[in-house]
């Protein structure tokens, strides 16, 4: 059960990452009506450079517990990138159900601005430090001029158009619909009216992907507290379904580029799609969401473009997707947005979404993709247990 949650996102946080984190953890504790001394479990995620610009933080879970002043009897570290947050909640919940911990603090986020100021992303940090490898084959793979992760997703978009005729306008439509949700979300960074033609006149960053199809990495943390305790002013939100899958292959070694491990991770909840009230799908790029729409079973492979033309996916529509505008409009903290999606799901379930509230929300389906090569997918359905 999720007993408390909080998050803070900044275009650029002026201060140390751990300072930013303390504010968020404090609010999550207040939300859960817990004292810090009652936290006996810690789950978190680390990728080189994304917490505070340091390539490595030795014994990271220790450093985090040290700074926060915790004494956990359960700790776990994830490195699934964007797909970490749902997995963290699942493991924390299992620990609690198993009696390994009572109140587990899950922390996800960091500062993208530290890497951005050095001209790299989490997927190109090997350009900054010879001590970091992206793959076991960097000698044969990283010698080329690329713009990863954008260039790898651009390859996927090109292939999707080649195989299925997906148009630039269809991808742009996804951005337009999410902006309609963002306009009603007080947490959104971008709230101007957006049309398909606005998206397509934004600069082409990496053909065929335009600037307004690409997420903006920011600074931020999200904290979630998992326990068996029902918090008085929150709904008793539980994990109704969970699935995970990892396809670590180099994308060029997969049969096709247009499939993600969401095909497997979502099998845990396929039966329930018609009962889902809102979907939060990882949106590093427009094409990422389109792949997941297909891979979780909302439409057949290749048909997400036509799906977007036909279905109202705004928060008021028949099939709400990325109800707060997604990371495309709220930013991608520390290059990974699992926390943003879970936070939005919890806001919806607890009727905290204010102007962008989906009416009658009982179940929210969250799917997160992680890794430049889409290696990780985690699926989680949140709602009150029957």
């Amino acid at each position: 059960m999720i007993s408390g949650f909080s998050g803070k996102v900044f275009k650029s946080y002026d201060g140390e990452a751990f300072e930013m984190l303390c504010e968020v953890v404090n609010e999550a504790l207040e939300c859960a009506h817990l004292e810090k001394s009652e936290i006996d479990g810690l789950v978190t995620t680390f990728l080189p450079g994304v917490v505070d610009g340091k390539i490595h933080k030795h014994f990271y879970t220790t450093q985090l517990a040290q700074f926060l002043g915790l004494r956990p009897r359960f700790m776990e570290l994830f490195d699934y990138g964007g797909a970490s947050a749902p997995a963290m909640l699942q493991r924390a919940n299992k620990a609690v159900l198993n009696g390994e911990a009572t109140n587990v603090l899950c922390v996800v986020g960091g500062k993208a601005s530290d890497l951005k100021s050095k001209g790299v992303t989490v997927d190109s940090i090997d350009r900054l430090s010879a001590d970091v490898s992206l793959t076991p084959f960097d000698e044969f793979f990283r010698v080329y001029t690329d713009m990863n992760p954008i260039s790898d997703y651009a390859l996927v978009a090109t292939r999707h158009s080649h195989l299925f005729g997906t148009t630039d306008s269809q991808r742009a439509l996804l951005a337009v619909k999410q902006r309609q949700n963002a306009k009603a979300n007080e947490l959104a960074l971008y709230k101007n009216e957006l049309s398909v033609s606005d998206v397509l006149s934004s600069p082409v960053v990496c053909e065929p992907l335009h600037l307004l199809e690409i997420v903006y990495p920011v600074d931020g943390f999200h904290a979630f507290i998992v326990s068996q305790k029902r918090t008085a002013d929150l709904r008793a939100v539980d994990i109704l379904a969970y699935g995970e899958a990892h396809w670590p292959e180099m994308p060029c070694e997969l049969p096709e580029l247009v499939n993600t491990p969401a095909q497997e991770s979502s099998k845990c909840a396929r039966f329930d799609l018609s009962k889902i009230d809102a979907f939060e799908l990882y949106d590093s790029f427009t094409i990422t969401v389109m792949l997941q729409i297909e891979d979780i079973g909302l439409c057949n492979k290749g048909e997400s473009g036509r799906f977007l033309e036909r279905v109202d996916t705004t928060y008021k529509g028949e099939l709400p997707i990325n109800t707060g505008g997604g990371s495309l409009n709220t930013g991608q903290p520390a290059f990974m947005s699992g926390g943003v999606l879970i936070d939005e799901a919890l806001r919806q379930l607890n009727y905290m979404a204010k102007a962008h509230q989906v009416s009658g929300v009982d179940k929210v389906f969250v799917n997160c993709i992680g890794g430049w090569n889409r290696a990780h997918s985690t699926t989680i359905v949140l709602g009150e247990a029957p």
Partner: protein
Amino acid sequence: MLPFIECDACGHKFFYPRARCPRCFSNKLQVKNSAGVGSVFSYTKFNTKSGESVIYAIIELAEGVRMYSNVFAQRIYVGLRVKAIFKELKGKRVVYFEEEGA
């Protein structure tokens, strides 16, 4: 010479080298020489900070193995037939691709 690897035990072919077959884990691997021709499986185009136009692509070699590379071509599309060329980059021989007819 553009090498790829074929597993004698299961027939799996791959470009990125491992000491054991990623499919069956056999160490009965053979390094083979590809003909150095193939086609563009997918591509993207972007400008570097210095304004240079770059094509980044996945090339499917005639032998059925795929790899990432940069392509030097005037026109680019999925299916474009390309051939391997070699250039020196920081003292190392790196394989790139250009249009087959070039």
